[in-house]
């Protein structure tokens, strides 16, 4: 079979579209993700809201993905694309590391990701922030769906990137301490959580230093749900039924007829 995407269904989909059938939208993560370099390493941050249109599909999803023991990657854009792409390159990195007998380098992951995304010409909607600490030191990259990359000391991506960047642009300076860096990441993500409707819920943080990673799930949780006014537990027998039929598990296992 030919490699790459198959466009056989484009004509069919257009026809269906014209007749009124809309293609379901992929789950996007809305998202605020950030990365920042400080004195001893790199700090990554992300919110935890996943949206499907204007509905919140997941209130506490993970957007900081494992790449290698010394490397993590935040993902914004189409959720399936970020999940599968990071997992794929993570797998390739593990094999590469075994083949070379060396710890993986951040530039290696970056190159693998960008070459993969460029090959798909932007159809894979993955916008990534890659951070890690290797033999050459700490590195931070952004990777765009079409395959371009930036190497920067502080970065933001996703629908909440402008809100988060406004925090970084007012406060970032070289030589931040670990606590200052983590607080700034938390502030930037919270700026996205409260000012961008595509982002919400909690702040996840990942601190990567020489030889050590601290993945803090739910570092900040400023959006706990209040207790409900009353319980909505239904008494047994609330659901309407037409005709009851009871079977024991043994009967169920051997039953051939599933219609009635």
């Amino acid at each position, binding site marked *: 079979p030919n490699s790459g995407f198959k466009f056989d269904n484009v004509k069919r989909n257009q026809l269906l579209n014209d007749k009124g059938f809309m293609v379901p939208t992929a789950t996007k993560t809305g998202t605020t993700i950030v990365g920042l370099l400080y004195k001893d390493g790199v700090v990554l941050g992300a919110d935890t809201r996943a949206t499907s249109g*204007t509905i919140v599909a997941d209130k506490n999803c993970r957007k900081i993905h494992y790449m290698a023991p010394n490397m993590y990657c935040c993902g914004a854009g189409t959720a399936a694309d970020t999940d599968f792409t990071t997992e794929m390159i993570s797998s390739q990195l593990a094999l590469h590391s075994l083949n070379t007998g060396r710890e993986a380098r951040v530039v290696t992951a970056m190159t693998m990701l960008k070459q993969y995304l460029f090959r798909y010409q932007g159809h894979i909607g993955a916008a990534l922030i890659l951070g890690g600490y290797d033999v050459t030191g700490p590195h931070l990259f952004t990777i765009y769906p079409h395959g371009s990359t930036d190497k920067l000391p502080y970065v933001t991506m996703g629908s909440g990137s402008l809100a988060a960047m406004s925090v970084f642009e007012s406060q970032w300076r070289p030589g931040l301490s670990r606590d200052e860096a983590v607080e700034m990441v938390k502030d930037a993500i919270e700026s996205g959580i409260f000012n961008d409707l595509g982002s919400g819920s909690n702040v996840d943080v990942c601190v990567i230093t020489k030889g050590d990673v601290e993945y803090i799930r739910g570092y900040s949780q400023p959006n706990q749900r209040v207790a409900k006014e*009353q319980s909505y537990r239904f008494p047994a027998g609330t659901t309407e039924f037409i005709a009851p039929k009871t079977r024991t598990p043994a009967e169920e296992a051997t039953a051939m007829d599933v219609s009635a």
Partner: protein
Amino acid sequence: MEYQMHTQQAPMQAPNQVHSHNHWSPYVDTGGTSLAIAGDDFVLVASDTRQSDGFNINTRYDSKAVELSNKTVLATSICSADGKRLTEVLEQKAQLYFHKHEKHIGTKALAQLLSNTLYSRRMFPYYVFPILAGIDSDGKGAAYSYDALGNMQLVTYIAFGSASALVQPFLDNQVGFKNQRGADSSRRLTREQAMMVAIDAFTGATERDIYTGDHLEIYIVDANGVHKEVRELKRD
């Protein structure tokens, strides 16, 4: 041996048809949700206060509900600009009624007036799905729901706005007692019960709808007049 050239083709379109994908719209959906629950001798109206535009928040506190008299409250939804204008127009018409008839307009009359006002703009509608709630001449709670063109329905409960699809089924179950075997469907809620249902409807909607949140305004209208309460909602 024949071979086929696989070239990418543009989607098939009928000849000479213009397919424009860029078109300016005069309407802006500013989001937010409203609901009303009518009881035996009261009516409850609740609206969140967030005003949005796409993924941005315009303001965390913009009232979508207005007291039109000491007996009626109007809640708007979808387009806040049209909602505000509609409220203004209706208030002016109520004033004219007062000067003409030397008495304040009743809920039933105001309900019909709203329907007529909406239909008068049939060809360039107010992009609003209003809810009018009040005490009628018998002292009973009444809630009227409308579409943007003025179709009016007297209801026991209704939800409109961005989270209407989330809230309406919850009201069907908890206020209308639908899908509950043996429940007394003619039973009406008390003030306290209606409050709890309204609050939980909104905290639930806030969890899953990005356009609902920030603050919640709750109005209770009964023979004593209009009582308003403001509560906090999640701001993410």
